[in-house]
Every structure is written in C-alpha cells, then in structure tokens.
C-alpha cells in the first residue's frame, strides 16, 4: 500500500483536545433547573398551538414552530417509554450496570430521560421485565440539589 516507502513499524504521533466550554442554559431551562433545585418540582412548557406539554421544557415547539408560553407542573409519577440496562463499561460513562429510561411524566406530552434505580440488574431478562414499557415510575429528588438534571432520578412506583 505504501508505494516507495520501506516497510517498518507504524509511526504514531499523539494528540489531545482538552477544551472547556461555558454553555448558556438559556432563560427557559434556567427556570426549569431553578424550580428543580429550589422546589423539587419538574416543570414543562405548553405549546399554544398543539397544547403539547414539552418536558424537558423548550422555548419553542418545533412542530408548530411557535414560542411556548405557560409553565405546567408534571409528575412526579410517570410511564416508561424506553429503557436500557448498560452492562458494559464505556469511556466517560459510569460503572455498569445502570439503567437509563425515557419516561413520560403524568401531564407531559414528551418523554424525559433519567437514571432508574432500585432494580436488581443481576438477571437481565428479569430486570427488563420490571422495566417493561408502560410500567410506572416515580421521580425521586436528591437532597441537596444543584440545579442539574441529576437532581432527580426515577424509581419503580
């Protein structure tokens, strides 16, 4: 393949990116994270067009393409829409096993992701049955809270 170059060991030069960002959360998500931190409640935004309650909140409805308006409290109970049980380790992710699920909180129109705790994960099929689509979960709030998405997680209701 390397025409004209003598055979030899590959030469590898290392490279590294270590870049810090300061992401602006925006006013809409700021309100969401403030409510989560200070009042342990999960708030969504209602679209004035289709009336969908978007959770996590967005400043706009991408389908109706209008600004969202009112705040609506949702949950803390909800329904599992999708889940996975992570069994293998990945770079930059927590030590397995753990569960992440998409849950539609009561009163919301969209699903929101978070960790699910309190399920015995040692037998995958049995764990999957407990996490089956349609099963009910409840949001549990951390104490103290930092205004981050990890201020709450789900457990089976």
């Amino acid at each position: 393949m390397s025409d004209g170059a003598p055979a030899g060991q590959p030469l590898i030069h290392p490279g590294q990116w270590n870049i810090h960002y300061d992401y602006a959360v925006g006013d809409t998500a700021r309100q969401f994270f403030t409510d989560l931190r200070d009042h342990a409640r999960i708030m969504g935004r209602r679209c004035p067009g289709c009336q969908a309650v978007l959770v996590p909140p967005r400043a706009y409805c991408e389908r109706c393409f209008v600004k969202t308006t009112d705040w609506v409290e949702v949950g803390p109970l909800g329904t599992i829409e999708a889940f996975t049980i992570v069994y293998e380790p990945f770079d930059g992710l927590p030590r397995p096993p753990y569960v992440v699920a998409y849950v539609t909180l009561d009163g919301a129109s969209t699903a929101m992701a978070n960790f699910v705790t309190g399920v015995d994960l040692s037998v995958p099929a049995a764990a999957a049955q407990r996490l089956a689509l349609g099963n009910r979960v409840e949001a549990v709030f951390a104490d103290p809270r930092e205004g981050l998405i990890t201020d709450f997680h789900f457990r089976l209701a």
Partner: protein
Amino acid sequence: MVSQRVGILGGAQTALVGRRDDVRLEELVFEAARAALADAGMVRDELDTIVMAGADQMDGRSISSMMAACPAGAYLKDEIRTTVEGSYAAVLACLRILSGEFETALAITWSKTSEGPYDLISTLSYDPFYHRPLAFNDVVEAAAVASSYAGPRGDLAEAAPVVVAKNRGNGAANPRAFLREAITPEAVSSSRYVAYPIRRAEVPQACDGAVALVLGSQRRALRSARPPVWIQGFGWGTGDYGVGAKVPAEFGGLRAAAAMAYARAGIRDPGRELDFAEVFDGTPYHEILAYEALGLAAAGGGPAFALDGSSARGGACPVNPSGGVQSANLRFASGLSRILEAYLQLSHRAGPVQLAAPAQGLAHGATTYPAQSHAVFVMRNS
C-alpha cells in the same frame, strides 16, 4: 418526479481494515477519489464539483475538509462539505447536478475512527443540559430506542440475531466487507448484553476506509465509459431529536425520506418493485425497523419479514446482500458504501455476492446509532 435523472458513472471503496496506519486521513481520501475516477474512466479535469461528507470530531481535526478537499480532487474547483452522514454527500451531489450548474460530481466520504475514542466522542452529540450528564452514547441511545420498538413487536428479540447472522453470512462472501466470518443466530443470542436489549455480537467492530462515487447529469451519463446506473429518485428527512419526542425516534426521518424518494421514482409498492435493498443496520434493530419504514413490511411486521426469510438472499426482497454495516461498519460513512454496493449490484459487478438479475434497488444511509436523519436512493440499471 425528477424530469432529469442523475447517473452513477463509477465508484470505489478502499480496502476496509480495522486500522490504517500506512496512510494519513488525506491519503485515504486521495486513494478513494483516484480509484473512483479510474473506475469511471475519467480524469480530475472532468469533475465539476466535489462533495464531501465528514465530521470533525470523528476526524480529530476541525474543518477537516480543509485538508481533505484537495486530495478529494478539489484543487481550484467547486467544493462543499456536509457534516451529515456519508449518504448525504450523494444527496448534495445529486442536487448540485440537478441544479444545472454542474455536469459531473465526485461524492466522497471517509471514516478513520480508529484514531480516537469513538464512544467518548459520540457523547459530544448529546444535549449538554438534559442528556450528556445521563450517561448516553451512541450504543446506549440505540439500545433505549430498540427497547421502545419491542413493545408492539413481541418477536423482535428473536428476529435480531437472525438479521445479524444473515448479514454476516452475506458479508463472509463479499471481498469488500471488513468482517468476513459468518456467525450463527445462536452465537449472537448467547453473546453478552452491551446495553439491553443490544448484545455484543449485534454491534459490529468498526473499520477505517473511504468511499467515492462519480455522478453525472443524464446527458453526461449517456456518454459515460461504463453503462450508468440511474438514480430514479432520492429523498432525505430528519426526525425529532430524542428530547422532543415521546418515543425517542420512530424512524420518522426515514419514512419522510422514503416517501420523497418513492414519489420521485414513481414507486407505489416497494416490496414488489424493489429487487433488493442496502440499508443502515448498525444494529439489527435498525434494519428491522427500516423494513417497516421503507414499506417492505407492514407496520409491526418487521420481525416476521426477517424470520420468514423475506430479507435473505433468495427472499422476496434481499436486504443487505453485501453484508451491510454488520460486516463493514464505516462509522458515519456507511451510507455511501450502501449506495456503492447497490450500484455494483445493478452494474452486475458485485462479484461473489451478485444477485441474479436485479433491475431496481434501494440504498439507505442514517446518521449512526440514534438515526435521526436518513437518506434514501432508488436506483435502476435501465
């Protein structure tokens, strides 16, 4: 309906290997571009525009097309790069030809993700506020999405290993594939879960490589060195990002892309009118859902379409006769490889994996595992 068709004049793919240490990224690009031009019997002077698809974070270089453009043939020529999956290089190249401004185009994409920590890099795609702190990456998201499909499809977990075994069996015969060993459904279903319901043997090892196609206007294609293959219709579509939807992704983007491609190509009954399909099968769940989204199987009928052999070689509509992504996981670039494999089938140049006499086929590309954006091509050889 497109009044003018775009023709494929030639194409090539570099050998796919786990890691290419003998070439740097630009040299890999050059290798594919030269080979595609040679296949089309053309020289660089005959190219009007160069269309690239690549993603900086995977290439480990920002604005990676800065260095890739000229080895792709773009020196002092029109060139443009999209950071959507490889199949979008073909979408954009077709559009540029149909604009009437360009007679010929080289569509090219590449993948050399052996050089970086891909799983970690894939976490960068996630929303930094709501998703990234929650341990998502490509495989974790794909697994969650797969679980949401399983609800109305009780036979999905049974069909997934059959799809992997089918594609790896096809790939074992394909000299252009990377993974060339067949695997049994039993071996797939006894491999460990990576992220339930996805098993280790359902996530193919990635490879390095580059793919290029030479495209031309109808007028130019009619005087090409080889008999052209015609793009009868193409379409593309983007669904919800996970955060906005109830179910993370029901392949809405693929349904939109297929509807657009079928309308342009005049396809009414894809299951009957398509002789084969090359689809994104990063996991078997993607392929099974594609059967439904492409209209090859009825809604909810995806698993049965695999289990009854409809998608196998010799079935009603063979899917991934090349071995698919399961046998050649060119991350973020595999869609153009699917188009190349469909082109080779329709040119009767697919070698040991050649189907008997295909006249019309489909190729599909998707934006890796969460599969938000999709492109679909309907191709004919007459």
